[in-house]
């Protein structure tokens, strides 16, 4: 936002209208800073100075021919240090016309008082600085005279009035009327102060955040360096994100490649089925698909050794898959349940086989889940228990227990692999081909669901209470009803 009114950067928080009719209310007021300062007494505080600047700025703007440029800020910033003698201030202004750094330092000091986002205010400052230069120069003489008289008048607040002097030069001698502060002005000025304060705090918080991020970045770089030196990075610079382990990054790459292979296998199955290949040829394709799955289980086994959390939390999958994850992968009994409907027609023997497969996988899943529960409980007890002095010992024990996690993920993958193999045994070649096609398509759709979900329009008018898509659609049809408590 270019073009700040004097003290207006504070107002940027309080309302957009402030910029356009900044001080309409103050039209009736002749903001004579000197008289104001006179009234307020001798104690100097920045709040009053701000107000004075605001009022000055208003006056100047009112007197300006070109109302589009806001003025006074750089001059105001310069007048932040009323203890400086007038001559010095002029010199400072003069030097800052030429040099960039002093402008910056002064502007930044102004910023601490008159808040706002650094780039815009600096820009505004420099804009105003340039503007000031063109306007201030023609009236040096008059300015000197006014200042002298002002100094005499203000007494102890002399410095402030001196500070205000360059701003005052534009007003004629006759305009030093009494300024009345009405409630609106007071409120606005108070808002200014608040906004300025808020901005200062925001800026401080932002800087602190930057600092901590910088520290974190150096720490991560060091970790990366350490990991590299230990030879954990294979194939040079896997380009993994800093907060992902190298084992996880490697697995993610391998999994991505496996997914591409999966597409290829699926097309083979599809064309094989449609082309009515002989059973022998189809068998080759089907067995190839089984090997394809064996491969991912092998990869997962290796990944479980290096980063079991990556697997078990499902960070390698899409969100929708992750939602239904069981022990680092799909739940075999759920898969079979899904398949039962799609595998018709089956012989009676096959039906028995499928149902008993479902039952045994359910029992195995239950057993593993209970084992994992016990591991979790045991881990909690270890971490929670023990006195402060035993801390390290407990950590060591906990680490030992945590290492069992890999075993559970391995057993779960083993279960998944065995289930697929058993399906292959129960079904004929054609049935198996169709079965694996269904499986592949199912997970493909689940992955697609994740993408669709993440790219859905966020600012929907639908309340978040709707649980299923159909309900949402219904609500969209009737927008005026009370389905939308948010409005």
């Amino acid at each position, binding site marked *: 936002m270019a073009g700040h009114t004097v003290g207006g950067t504070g107002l940027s928080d309080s309302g957009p209208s402030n910029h356009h009719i900044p001080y309409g209310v103050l039209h009736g007021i002749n903001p004579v800073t000197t008289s104001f300062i006179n009234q307020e007494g001798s104690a100097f505080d920045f709040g009053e100075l701000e107000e004075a600047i605001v009022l000055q700025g208003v006056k100047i703007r009112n007197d300006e021919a070109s109302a589009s440029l806001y003025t006074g800020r750089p001059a105001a910033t310069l007048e932040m240090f009323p203890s400086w003698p007038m001559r010095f201030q002029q010199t400072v202004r003069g030097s800052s016309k030429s040099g960039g750094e002093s402008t910056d330092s002064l502007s930044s000091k102004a910023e601490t008082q008159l808040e706002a986002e650094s780039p815009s205010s600096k820009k505004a400052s420099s804009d105003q600085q340039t503007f000031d230069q063109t306007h201030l120069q023609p009236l040096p003489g008059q300015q000197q005279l006014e200042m002298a008289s002002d100094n005499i008048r203000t007494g102890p607040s002399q410095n402030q009035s001196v500070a205000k002097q360059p701003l005052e030069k534009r007003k004629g001698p006759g305009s030093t009327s009494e300024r009345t502060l009405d409630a609106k002005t007071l409120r606005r000025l108070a808002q200014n102060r608040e906004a300025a304060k808020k901005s200062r705090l925001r800026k401080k918080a932002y800087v602190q955040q930057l600092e901590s991020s910088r520290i974190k970045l150096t720490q991560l770089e060091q970790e990366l360096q350490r990991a590299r030196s230990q030879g954990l990075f294979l194939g040079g610079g896997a380009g993994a994100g800093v907060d992902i382990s190298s084992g996880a990054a490697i697995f993610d790459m391998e999994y991505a490649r496996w997914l591409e292979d999966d597409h290829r296998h699926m097309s083979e199955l599809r064309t094989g089925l449609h082309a009515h290949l002989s059973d022998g040829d189809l068998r080759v394709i089907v067995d190839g698909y089984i090997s394809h799955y064996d491969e991912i289980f092998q990869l997962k086994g290796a990944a479980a050794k290096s980063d079991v959390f990556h697997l078990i939390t499902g960070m390698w999958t899409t969100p929708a898959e992750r939602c239904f994850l069981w022990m680092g992968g799909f739940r075999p009994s759920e898969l079979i349940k899904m398949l039962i409907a799609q595998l018709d027609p089956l012989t009676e023997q096959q039906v028995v086989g499928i149902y008993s497969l479902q039952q045994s996988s359910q029992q*195995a899943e239950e057993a593993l889940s209970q*084992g994992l529960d016990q*591991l979790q409980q*045991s881990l909690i007890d270890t971490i929670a228990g023990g006195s402060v002095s035993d801390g390290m010992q407990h950590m060591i024990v906990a680490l030992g227990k945590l290492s*069992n996690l890999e075993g*559970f993920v391995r*057993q779960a993958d083993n279960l998944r692999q065995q289930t697929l193999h*058993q399906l292959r045994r129960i079904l004929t070649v054609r049935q198996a081909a169709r079965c694996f096609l269904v499986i592949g398509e199912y997970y493909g759709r689940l992955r697609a669901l994740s993408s669709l979900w993440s790219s859905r329009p966020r600012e929907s008018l639908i309340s978040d209470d709707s649980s299923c898509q159909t309900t949402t659609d219904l609500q969209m049809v009737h927008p005026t009803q009370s389905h939308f408590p948010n409005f």
Partner: protein
Amino acid sequence: MQCYRSETWGYYMASRSSLENPLERVARLASESAVVIFSVSSCCMCHAVKRLFCGMGVNPTIYELDHDPRGMEIERALTRLLGASSAVPVVFIGGKLVGAMDRVMASHINGTLVPLLKEAGAMWL
């Protein structure tokens, strides 16, 4: 709820020869019950295999190696027998070695576990 019986070692120590080597001991113990599981009380995978059998309505005989004075020997022997990193859990059915958890799971999925249990008399329809 316990579906298995944990044997006390004392009885066996008193009445059997202490010259028996660990593997012989294992073989003997395995032949004395329909379903025998060698376990460690703190092992969670052992807990899982116990739950599996209990869930199927089987009452296995459990030997907790950490409660046995000669448990360490047996553990070492089992590790060598299995060629695996972990000795437990190990399952014997009808005196014959089935294996560690992965073998037990695989045999359950491919439908060979239940017939084995029935044959050993550990399960009735």
